[in-house]
């Protein structure tokens, strides 16, 4: 299955992309998305457990992802 991964701010800079399409086996979790992402060049500049969101809601590493989901890796927020 395929999911869209969104990257922002310093994380987008680190990976040189603001959006990626990843292919994952059925039953994959948010943690699996992150593990796949961490194998990419530049990912060493991300922390080991960044905040993640699925379909615009914060999600833990064991949350399931489904085909077509929008998975976001959220850098430290700095609003205000």
């Amino acid at each position: 299955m395929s999911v869209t991964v969104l990257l922002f701010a310093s994380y987008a800079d680190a990976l040189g992309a603001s959006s990626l399409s990843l292919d994952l086996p059925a039953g994959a979790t948010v943690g699996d998305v992150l593990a796949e992402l961490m194998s990419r060049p530049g990912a060493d500049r991300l922390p080991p457990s960044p905040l993640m969101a699925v379909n615009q809601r914060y999600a833990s590493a064991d949350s399931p992802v489904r085909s077509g989901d929008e998975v976001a890796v959220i850098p430290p927020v700095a609003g205000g």
Partner: protein
Amino acid sequence: MSQFVSPIGELVDRTIDPGALLSRVSSPSNGALIVFVGVVREVNEGRDVTGIEYSAYEPMAARELQAIADEAGARFATPHVAIEHRLGELALEDASVGIAVGHAHRGAAYEASRWIIEELKRRVPIWKREHYTDGTREWVDPASRSAQPASP
């Protein structure tokens, strides 16, 4: 005032007008109105700032701002909550965030206002890149900073 006021939290790409925010939370039932405005400062963590660029995971940030407005309304028992966060390039003294609360009583108005800005800073996916006088730019990570509270 309309009888059907409800909390509002939204992203904007224009100047934040504190007076307009205040008028959105005015009501004959409110004895206290508070507006908090977060502003771009000239110095942050000892570095000279010339401007800040705000970006967001827009649909999620908009959802979280609305959720914070709704939660504040429920928690502090008032429909009179209006939050705006600006995105884009901001100059010194530009407002990045405006939070207006109207409440019957001042204690709850202060508590709600403070609760909203702390929640906003904790969970709304917005990022800022500061531009410095030496021409460099840097993404801001509030957690990596000194114990001195970050602006605003």
